[in-house]
């Protein structure tokens, strides 16, 4: 059967298979992130490129600890190697890239399901009380959110990396010998994994009937045979090499991310073009195949260290690939003045056309000018890439642990208000509440900082970053894990969450109790205690003040005050061990969880309801998207990490070229005002409301939850409801 098959057809086939996999994952509950440093068993998480394993696949780890855990570099290395060696081969003849990952080793290795991986011998119960008191998501034991410099791998290849490990192992002996053993195992496991795919591709090619796909498999076999040891030379080889690395890293602990793909692939692209062996269509196809395997956190359109635009054909091809795939992706366009304007135009066009919540937009200037305030040079800031939900990293040189340590402003406020109301002193004042809030916030930051130190002290003995270490500067050379001090820069992210809930609460008390005197402190105390039972009127009175996001209101002022004081506290000190911390405001997908254990708040929020999302005003607080933008721009922490604006808008705001042009102006103005990151959800309201009733009717409906896009049908009921609430309240 001789039949030509086009790239487009192959892309469609790949998307279809991906949708099937997602269906299976939802059914088997594999789409959940099952553990973080929180107590919730399942969380809505990114739709990673993970593939459901065959149902009869069995794999047993060899724990090295009585708790059943797999701890330390030797055990992690050898167990992961074993997993790689037993991992089912995955080849889709439609794809130009071999491989597919099916597990999260970090979670498999966890003795206590639903929690972060931790060795109970390293006891941090001395921090527990305060962590709970202030609702701190401490990040101890979490995979640590930083990422590789892929160029190291492109230069060395797996053989080169192995040689490098062995060289330094010998040189540094006996220091770091366990660590090196772990690293070696990882590389050997990966090489085995790749090699088995080369062999399988060859086998498949012998039975493949379609000539195009047969050719594809033969080429796949050739490339992978080479990549077991050698570094990549062509564009296709580089994409495959990257895919292997990123899959290995994601499967190890969900860590590692794309980064500035249009920069690191550029030399290969140029070289192939020069030789005339690569068309743009083919390059786009390889990128599509990559996005199927790893859909997340690519930056495009940044600058070089001198501030020159790095936009190039790959930037456009990646957008085009995502557009053709129509799967959830997270692509960040780094917007700056020197940029080729066509890239932003294309990105906005795709955003509105595909309605997948991608691409997203980051301000190059505001991230850079913020980062240098930590004492770094502008050149360094320009190398810091946007590579996660809301975080940045200097590839291979910086450890950030970003987006993992969160301070729940609402918990801190709750502690404060209770303390003030119970103080026995009848002369309360909002000023007094504010002073105590600042005090407790300071304590909360201290506790978070101690947690960070604790993590950095011990994580390497529990779950070292063995895969990312391979492509960092310093880990192999020094025989020390990145989580333990091998890298050049340590800038630990500490985020606040629930800004609007607290700003509105302060403002509501001030207005209704102190200024208008409609309510007494006792009444506040009593309605909160009774969760607004039989006090709907009072609740609405408190809720319907001019809230944070309304513009120029008391609550807006509180928003700014809270953000400034938080920034000041975080920047005032380093962690007790001297690590620099960088503030941000972002709650990721933890709004529901973070509100779950907190009583009613004076902003009209009922007990146990979600807290407000990250830096966003509550839905319905702002009369326009410009008001939202102004509010979020005004509360930026300004040290190089973001306080994102999450925007849910109607497709009508960008249904034609002209309105898209206006949206581009909107993005730029948001950045002019100081905004750092913009995530946009194009919500077809009718569709969402219907999908909430009948999720199965819309298996392909993609929404942006926060820093990531995912299938609506795959979200938990709570999250679906949150999105629906956003629609209802803002209409």
């Amino acid at each position, binding site marked *: 059967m001789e039949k030509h098959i086009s790239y487009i057809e192959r892309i469609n086939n790949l998307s279809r298979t991906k949708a099937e996999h997602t269906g299976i994952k939802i059914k088997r509950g594999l789409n959940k992130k099952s553990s973080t440093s929180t107590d919730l068993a399942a969380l809505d998480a990114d739709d990673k490129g993970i593939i459901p394993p065959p149902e009869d696949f069995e794999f047993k780890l060899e724990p090295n600890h009585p708790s059943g855990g797999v701890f330390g570099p030797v055990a992690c290395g050898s167990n992961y190697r074993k997993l790689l060696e037993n991992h089912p081969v995955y080849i889709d003849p439609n794809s130009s890239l071999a491989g597919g990952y099916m597990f999260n080793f970090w979670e498999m290795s966890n003795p206590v399901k639903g929690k972060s991986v931790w060795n109970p011998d390293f006891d941090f119960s001395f921090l527990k009380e305060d962590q709970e008191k202030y609702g701190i998501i401490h990040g101890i034991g979490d995979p640590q959110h930083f990422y590789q410099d892929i160029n190291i791998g492109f230069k060395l290849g797996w053989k080169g990396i192995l040689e490098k490990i062995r060289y330094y192992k010998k040189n540094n002996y006996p220091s770091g010998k366990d660590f090196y053993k772990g690293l070696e195992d990882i590389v050997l496991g990966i090489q085995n994994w790749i090699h088995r795919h080369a062999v399988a591709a060859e086998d498949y090619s012998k039975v493949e009937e379609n000539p195009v796909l047969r050719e594809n498999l033969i080429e796949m076999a050739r490339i992978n045979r080479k990549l077991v040891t050698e570094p990549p030379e062509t564009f296709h080889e580089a994409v495959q090499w990257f895919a292997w690395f990123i899959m290995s890293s994601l499967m190890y602990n969900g860590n590692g991310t794309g980064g500035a793909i249009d920069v690191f692939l550029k030399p290969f692209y140029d070289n192939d073009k020069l030789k005339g062996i690569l068309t743009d269509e083919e390059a786009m196809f390889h990128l599509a195949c990559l996005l199927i395997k790893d859909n997340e956190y690519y930056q495009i359109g940044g600058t070089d260290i001198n501030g020159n635009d790095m936009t190039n054909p790959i930037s456009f091809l990646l957008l085009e690939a995502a557009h053709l795939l129509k799967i959830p992706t997270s692509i960040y366009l780094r917007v700056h003045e020197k940029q080729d304007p066509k890239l932003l135009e294309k990105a906005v066009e795709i955003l509105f056309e595909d309605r997948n919540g991608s691409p997203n937009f980051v301000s190059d200037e505001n991230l850079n000018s913020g980062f240098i305030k930590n004492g770094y040079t502008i050149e360094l800031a320009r190398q810091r890439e946007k590579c996660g939900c809301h975080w940045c990293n200097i590839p291979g040189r910086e450890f950030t642990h970003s987006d993992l340590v969160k301070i729940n402003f609402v918990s801190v406020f709750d502690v404060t208000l209770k303390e003030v109301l119970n103080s026995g002193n009848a002369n309360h004042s909002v000023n007094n509440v504010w002073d105590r809030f600042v005090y407790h916030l300071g304590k909360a930051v201290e506790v978070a900082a101690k947690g960070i130190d604790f993590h950095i002290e011990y994580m390497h003995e529990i779950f070292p970053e063995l895969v990312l270490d391979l492509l960092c500067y310093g880990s192999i050379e020094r025989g020390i894990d990145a989580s333990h001090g091998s890298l050049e820069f340590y800038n630990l992210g500490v985020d606040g969450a629930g800004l609007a809930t607290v700003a509105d609460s302060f403002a509501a008390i001030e207005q209704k109790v102190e200024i208008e005197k409609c309510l007494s402190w006792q009444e506040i105390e009593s309605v909160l205690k009774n969760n607004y039972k039989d006090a709907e009127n009072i609740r609405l009175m408190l809720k319907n003040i001019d809230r944070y996001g309304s513009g120029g209101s008391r609550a807006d002022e509180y928003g700014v005050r809270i953000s400034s004081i938080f920034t000041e506290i975080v920047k005032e000190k380093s962690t007790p061990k001297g690590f620099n911390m960088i503030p941000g405001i972002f709650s990721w997908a933890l709004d529901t969880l973070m509100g779950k254990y907190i009583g009613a708040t004076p902003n009209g929020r009922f007990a146990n309801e979600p807290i407000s999302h990250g830096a966003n005003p509550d839905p319905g607080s702002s009369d326009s*998207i410009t008001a939202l933008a102004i509010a979020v721009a005004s509360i930026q922490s300004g040290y190089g990490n973001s306080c994102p604006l999450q925007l849910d808008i109607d497709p009508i705001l960008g249904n034609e070229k002209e309105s898209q042009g*206006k949206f581009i102006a909107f993005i730029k103005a948001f950045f002019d005002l100081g905004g750092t990151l913009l995530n946009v959800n194009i919500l077809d309201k009718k569709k969402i409301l219907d999908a909430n009733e009948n999720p199965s009717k819309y298996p392909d409906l993609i929404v942006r939850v926060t820093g990531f896009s995912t299938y609506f049908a795959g979200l938990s009921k709570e999250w679906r409801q949150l999105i629906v609430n956003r629609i209802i309240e803002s209409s």
Partner: protein
Amino acid sequence: MSQVSGNIFSIQRYSIHDGPGIRTTVFFKGCPLHCFWCHNPESQKSEQEIQVVDFRCIECGLCIKNCPNDARKIVDDKILILKDKCKLCMKCVSVCMSKATEVVGREYTVEELIKKIITDVPFYKRSRGGVTFSGGEPLIQIEFLLECLKECKKNNIHTALDTSGYGTWSKFEKILNFTDLFLYDIKTLDNKKHKKATGVSNKIILENLNRISERNAKIHIRIPLIPNFNDTSKDMEEIANYLKKIKGIELVELLNFHQLGYGKYKNLQRQYLAENLKPIKDERIKELSEIFIKNKFNIKTR
């Protein structure tokens, strides 16, 4: 700043269909026309009104309890305002915690309004946008309008006036120098029809159009397309032929009828005369727009 104040019933930010760029559209209350299809019924009366937004009401009964004139009542599970009894004392508005009872129309001083408008300057700058005064008919609050326009120009903000064209020439004369763009409504050239549908003659409207054009105004013509009223080729041919002779027209917009005003009529407890009309089909809109394209107009349809 001038102490005149004006009655505004809505301020819409990030307005992208009322002139170039990102704009703030300010809706003036009061209109001398009474187009039966009007989708802003709250714009028609000059005075303040109150309305009840159904879905926000929590049926607490506080409005009934607090109304000194016995003007609030529940009928068929709906909380109503008895218009003949209501004295607009606004007591019910202040007691309604859910914001279900709302005032339509608020007095703004020039300063207050300008402050609101200025907030979005960064967005105007990036998009070459500005402010659009719309309504209602802004010209009936001419002193307030004039002061607002002047203030905007002082602040370098692009100004547009969305007008029915119905007003004395002296009003236009006053504002011409401070208005960068006119969004000028033309409904039909057939005066009889015009009178019947809007309550006023189109003579003065067309005259004013000619005169602002002679004074080099920049003009966007807006034609609301209303089924069974002006959606004929004849109507459009006539308009196109007329407009051909007028200079300064940068754009002609054909605005399809829509039913989005329906809920507002309900909130205001008023009858909606266009209730049974359906939007005109896209193909038909396209046919009608061809008439303008043929006559070399820039055309936009919505």
